[in-house]
C-alpha cells in the first residue's frame, strides 16, 4: 500500500524516464548573415511519441527563437510544414520521433528544388504557378443549375484519391525531374488536374489534357515513384500521372 505522496513521486519518476535525448540536425540559412547554409545541432529531451514539429517548437520557443519554419494547423491538413526529415520528404506534424530512429541525429532540411528563403522556409511560387496553370477549378458551360450538380457514387469514386491533396509540395519537391528543371509541372499539379479531368461534372478535361501535353508536362515523368513515397496523404501520385498519360493517348486515338 503506497501513500499518496509516494504515488506522486513514482508518477514523476515515470514521467521523466520516458523522455529521451534527441539531436536535431537542422539546415540553417539566413541571407542576412551568410550566403551559405550550415548544419546546426540542437539537443533536447523529448517524449519519443511526440512529433518532429513538437521538437521544432521546443527549439524555437526554448532554445533559439531565430529558427524559421512554416506550420499552420499542425495536424496534417494545411500542408505548410513539408520538410525533408532524415532525407525523406514528410510533414513534420505527422512524423513521430520514435518512427525515425531517434538514436541518431534527426536531420531536418527544407524541401528541395525550390528557393530557400530562410532556414526551412522555401519560395513556393513556382509550385503554385504550376498548380494555377492546370486550372484547378470546375469549368462548365450552360446555365447554372438551381440545385447541386449530382454525380453517381461510381463517378465520384473515379477521382476520389486525388481529392485528398493538401498542396504541401512534398511530392513535387521529391521529384528528380523537378529538381533539375523547375519547368516540369510536377506531380502535385498533375494530381490536381487529374482531380478535374476525371470528374464527370467538369467540361474542360480536354483543355487540361492539352496543357499537360506540354514538353514539360506528363511526358517528363520517369515513374521513379518518389512522389508516391513522399505523399503524406497516401495518394497514389504516380498512378494518377499514368492515368493522365493513358487518357491523353486513348482520347486521341
Amino acid at each position, binding site marked *: 500500500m503506497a501513500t499518496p505522496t509516494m504515488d506522486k513521486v513514482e508518477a514523476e519518476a515515470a514521467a521523466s524516464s520516458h523522455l529521451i535525448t534527441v539531436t536535431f540536425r537542422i539546415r540553417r540559412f539566413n541571407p542576412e*548573415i*551568410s*550566403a551559405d547554409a550550415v548544419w546546426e545541432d540542437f539537443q533536447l529531451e523529448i517524449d519519443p511519441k511526440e512529433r518532429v514539429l513538437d521538437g521544432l517548437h521546443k527549439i524555437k520557443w526554448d532554445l533559439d527563437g531565430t529558427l524559421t519554419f512554416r506550420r499552420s494547423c499542425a495536424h496534417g491538413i494545411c500542408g505548410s510544414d513539408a520538410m525533408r526529415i532524415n532525407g525523406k520528404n514528410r510533414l513534420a506534424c505527422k512524423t513521430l520521433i520514435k518512427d525515425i530512429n531517434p538514436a541518431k541525429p534527426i536531420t531536418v532540411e527544407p524541401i528541395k528544388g525550390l528557393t530557400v528563403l530562410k532556414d526551412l522556409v522555401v519560395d513556393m511560387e513556382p509550385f503554385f504557378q504550376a498548380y494555377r496553370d492546370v486550372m484547378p477549378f470546375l469549368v462548365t458551360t450552360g446555365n447554372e443549375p438551381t440545385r447541386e450538380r449530382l454525380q453517381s457514387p461510381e463517378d465520384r469514386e473515379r477521382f476520389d484519391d486525388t481529392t485528398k491533396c493538401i498542396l504541401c509540395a512534398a511530392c513535387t519537391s521529391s521529384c528528380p525531374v523537378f529538381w533539375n528543371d523547375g519547368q516540369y509541372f510536377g506531380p502535385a499539379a498533375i494530381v490536381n488536374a487529374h482531380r478535374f479531368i476525371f470528374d464527370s461534372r467538369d467540361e474542360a478535361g480536354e483543355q487540361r489534357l492539352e496543357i499537360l501535353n506540354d514538353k514539360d*508536362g506528363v511526358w517528363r515523368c520517369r515513374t521513379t515513384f518518389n512522389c508516391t513515397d513522399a505523399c503524406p496523404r497516401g495518394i497514389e501520385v504516380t498512378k494518377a500521372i499514368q492515368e493522365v*498519360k493513358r487518357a491523353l493517348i486513348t482520347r486521341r486515338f
Partner: protein
Amino acid sequence: MSTDTTVTKSGGSGVGPVEDVALYDVDHPAPLIEAPRKRTSKTPRATRGNFEMAAWLFMRLSGVVLVVLVITHLLIQLVLDGGVSKIGFAFVAGRWASPFWQVWDLLMLWLAMLHGANGLRTVINDYAERPNTRLWLKGLLYTATVFTILLGTLVIFTFDPNIR
C-alpha cells in the same frame, strides 16, 4: 544546444572587431539562389504539340518489338548451331541473301538507334543544366545517330557477297 558548424553571429566572443565584420546584414542580405529556370513572364509560352507523346509511345512500342528482334538475333548469332565460332563473311552473306533477314536487320538497326537516341535525349534533357551544354550534347547525339543509321542502311542495301 551545441553547434557543430560555425555560425557567424555579430558580437561573437573572442573575435576582434575587424574579423567580426559580417559580409551580410539586414540591409544587405545574401543573394538567394533562383530556382532553375523559374517560370517567369519571360519564359516562352506553351511548347505543346504531340512530339513528346509520340516519343513516349515510340519508346514503349519499339521496346516491345526490340525484345523479340534482339533476342532472336542474339540466339541465331551466338547460341544456336555452333555459336559464335560459325560467324564469318560467308555466314553474314548467306543470311543477307534473304530479304527477310535484310528487313529484320534493317528494322533492328532503325528501332534500336532511334530508341537509344531518344533515351539519351531524355537523359540530356534531365541532366544537362546549361542550354549550351544541352545544345552541344544533343548535336553530337543526333549527328552520331544519323551517321550510324545511314551507314548501316547503306551497307544492308548495297551489300555485295562477291566483293574482293
